[in-house]
């Protein structure tokens, strides 16, 4: 007749929360009571735990078992508490010493034979453990790779209940990761696949340096999609902190390939039929499924055929583009989902795709259809696009530089901006605040001259801020200490070259 405590963790939104599992074993009718706002998947835990304990050759307590999940007001979901509950029961019945389980976080689902299975969202749980000051975490082998990346926690994997017991007693070694069998396909997507299109490749490079949002307009088959898919190859790898956040999101969304951490900027390209829920994220009970916008956190969101997306879906981009997160409000869950992504849009010049004068065919769109198409991406959203380029039909035959060469230049330019932002909260040029653009990050006198004439000409102040951020990326690429007049001129060109397609 005893009380035991173990630790588990659950996911809420895309972050983990530590859960203290208290198990009391007392005299009485043989029942199991589970309290602490469990949802259906947590209630099922007691059946899995019971069968797993019995099938592992351990004994299920006779009498009354009360399990309390604390904090009691937090709603809990998912099968990740199975192992914590089973270990609590084993502790309460004296089958394992209470002190062995009190300072370890258990995150795994149990099979009926006692084996440990991976759960979605194990990584945020390990992060929560580390933040709670607990180093020891036991997970299933399938979750080990992603959990290893938390530097302040020591995650180990066990195969089944008996293995866990043995490990905790100091009698067994944890499982080790086998060699990675994940095939690396990234090398097959290289920038040198794009023939010609020097200007578009250059625009992509500038966008990669400053994480500027980019819009590409061009006839069908001119290489817009090909180019966009190659941006992850020229972006620098994620920092340690970014890797943690991005991997946690993909762990919750169950979109990790082979469970290895996300070390390269994620690339999300939802189909244009995507619903609002698929983009911003959906909530089922307590379970939050991150949408494409959140999965693109620290990476790239590519909307191919942008005008074909529903207006609602497109307008949903505005909040995250401005603030870097989505404030999701549903009846059963309200909270913030991170979504700081670089947006890339691709579109045809018109519904039939032949509106450019050098098209092989003649545009047959009616004026109304054309108008509807070109105004589908609303002004406010368009305003948040930094670089607008038009991809002409002129096809080159020479292959350009490979992704590796371009990436090196991008990384070098990024390092310059990192040094510059040492005393500022930003990491990339696209984040510089308007006030700082005036005070700390203005161009050299020639650049200021040109920018002022642009403001008077047509750009407006906001447009000039965006142009100046691009100018910084150009300066970083060219190795200039401050944007010069030519950097500003090129930035203005990149900002507006799409309008060369006229009214």
């Amino acid at each position: 007749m005893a009380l035991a405590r173990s630790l588990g963790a659950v996911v809420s939104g895309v972050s983990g929360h530590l859960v203290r599992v208290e198990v009391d074993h007392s005299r009485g009718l043989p029942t199991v009571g589970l309290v602490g706002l469990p949802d259906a998947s947590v209630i099922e835990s007691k059946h899995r735990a019971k069968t797993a304990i019995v099938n592992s050759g351990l004994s299920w307590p006779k009498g009354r078992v009360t399990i309390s999940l604390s904090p009691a007001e937090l709603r809990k979901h998912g099968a990740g508490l199975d192992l914590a509950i089973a270990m609590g029961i084993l502790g309460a019945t004296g089958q394992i010493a209470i002190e062995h389980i009190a300072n370890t976080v258990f995150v795994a689902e149990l099979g009926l034979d006692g084996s440990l299975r991976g759960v979605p969202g194990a990584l945020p749980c390990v992060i929560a453990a580390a933040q709670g000051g607990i180093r020891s975490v036991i997970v299933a082998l399938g979750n080990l790779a992603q959990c290893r990346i938390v530097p302040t926690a020591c995650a180990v994997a066990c195969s089944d209940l008996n293995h866990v017991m043995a490990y905790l007693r100091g009698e067994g070694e944890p499982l080790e990761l086998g060699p990675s069998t994940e095939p690396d396909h990234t090398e097959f997507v290289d920038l040198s696949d794009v023939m010609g299109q020097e200007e578009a490749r250059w625009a992509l490079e500038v966008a990669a340096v400053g994480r500027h949002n980019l819009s590409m307009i061009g006839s069908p088959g001119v290489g817009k999609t090909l180019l966009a898919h190659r941006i992850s190859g020229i972006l620098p790898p994620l920092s340690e902190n970014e890797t943690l956040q991005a991997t946690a999101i993909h762990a919750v969304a169950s979109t990790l390939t082979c469970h290895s951490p996300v070390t390269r900027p994620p690339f999300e390209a939802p189909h244009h039929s995507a619903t609002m829920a698929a983009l911003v994220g959906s909530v089922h009970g307590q379970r939050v499924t991150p949408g494409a916008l959140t999965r693109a956190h620290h990476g790239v969101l590519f909307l191919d055929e942008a005008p074909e997306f529903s207006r609602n879906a497109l307008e949903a981009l505005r909040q995250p583009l401005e603030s870097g997160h989505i404030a999701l409000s549903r009846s059963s869950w309200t909270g913030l989902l991170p979504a700081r992504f670089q947006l890339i849009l691709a579109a045809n010049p018109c519904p039939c795709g032949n509106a450019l004068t050098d098209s092989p065919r003649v545009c047959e769109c009616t004026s109304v259809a054309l108008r509807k198409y070109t105004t589908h991406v609303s002004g406010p959203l368009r305003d948040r696009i930094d670089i607008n380029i038009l991809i002409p039909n002129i096809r080159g035959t020479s292959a350009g530089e490979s992704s590796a060469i371009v990436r090196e230049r991008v990384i070098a330019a990024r390092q310059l901006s990192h040094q510059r932002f040492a005393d500022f909260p930003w990491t990339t040029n696209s984040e510089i605040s308007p006030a700082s653009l005036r005070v700390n990050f203005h161009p050299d006198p020639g650049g200021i001259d040109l920018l002022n004439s642009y403001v008077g000409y047509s750009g407006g102040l906001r447009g000039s801020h965006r142009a100046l951020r691009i100018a910084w990326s150009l300066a970083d690429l060219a190795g200039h200490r401050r944007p010069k007049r030519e950097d500003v001129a090129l930035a203005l060109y990149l900002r507006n070259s799409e309008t060369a397609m006229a009214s």
Partner: protein
Amino acid sequence: MQFTSESDAFIALAHLCEPADEAINKRLASGISPQEVLDMLLKKGFPQRDHVAFAHKLEALNLEAELEYSQKIGARILVRDQEGWPTQLHALGIFQPWALWSIGSIDFRVIALSSVTIVGTRACTPYGAGIAHQWAADLGTWGTSVFSGGAIGIDSQAHRGALSVGAPTVSVLASGVHARYPSSHEHLFAQIIDNGAIVSESPPREPALKRRFLARNRILAGLTKATCVIEATDRSGTSSTAREALNMNRIVAGVPGSIHSPTSLGVNTLLKHTDVHVVTSSADLQELVSGFNPRRKPAGDDTAGGRPSDQGPDWRELSGSDYEIWELLPKRGGHGVDILCHKTGRSRLDLLARLSELDLTGFVTNNEGLWRKSS
């Protein structure tokens, strides 16, 4: 209901029947008064017409309230051949409108004295849009006002061009003056009302029905001295405006376009007609309307004959290297940056930076990646 005056009867006709109704207009032309025509419509005077439906419509019409409404929104009503009627519409013969509603800050009959109708396709290209805007602005500065139909495409560019130099402009609509179509041009219409007038032969709240667009074209052609077609497709409503103008022996002009461009097919076909003038500049058009060419300097006078579109940037201001680039560019078509790289030996980014600045200052124009001298 009996209408005491002829003008009330004409306004009632405008409310009850579609404009340019041939059978009705023929009766009117044969000396039958509009009151009698209404009576005939009611009493089987027109075979093959549903006189019962007409009776219901007549029953439902509250002419007093309609007139009050017109007054409330500030619409002025002119009635066929009554006081104030624009007499140039006599050229329409029996197809004169029964009544015209107009709103705006300026009397359209006054500015119609020196005016030109500019029409064209809604699905215009940058070529036509640019011409419409520039020419309307030029004509505006020379004192010729532009009439058009308020539609998207060429029409709106013409209105905007006139407004851009503060010149009055008139929009003749197929809808009523208070149910202005297209609604996306509400802002433009508001500007036109402030700086010109909006005219329609349909009562203020009538929608723009399809057949009313064709009927409207005859008024556009009839109000002004000349009609100029800028871009028109093969089967464009624009051609009907030109035909109406030709029938009235008005001046008709067209802007030629590429024989490969589908948006110029209609104009090029029109230009085969011997009575149609080819115009290739705003000055040509101004000369057709007013008889003098604003760009031809009178002998011995160096100051007269300003050319608005000549007030652009002067290439003499260009620095040596910029001049070199500018000089290389053609006036039509354009060069890609690759060609310029090859010809100048300068780097792509260097050239793009210069071109971007020259674009800002108005020396060069970028069209889909091809650069040319600004005209």
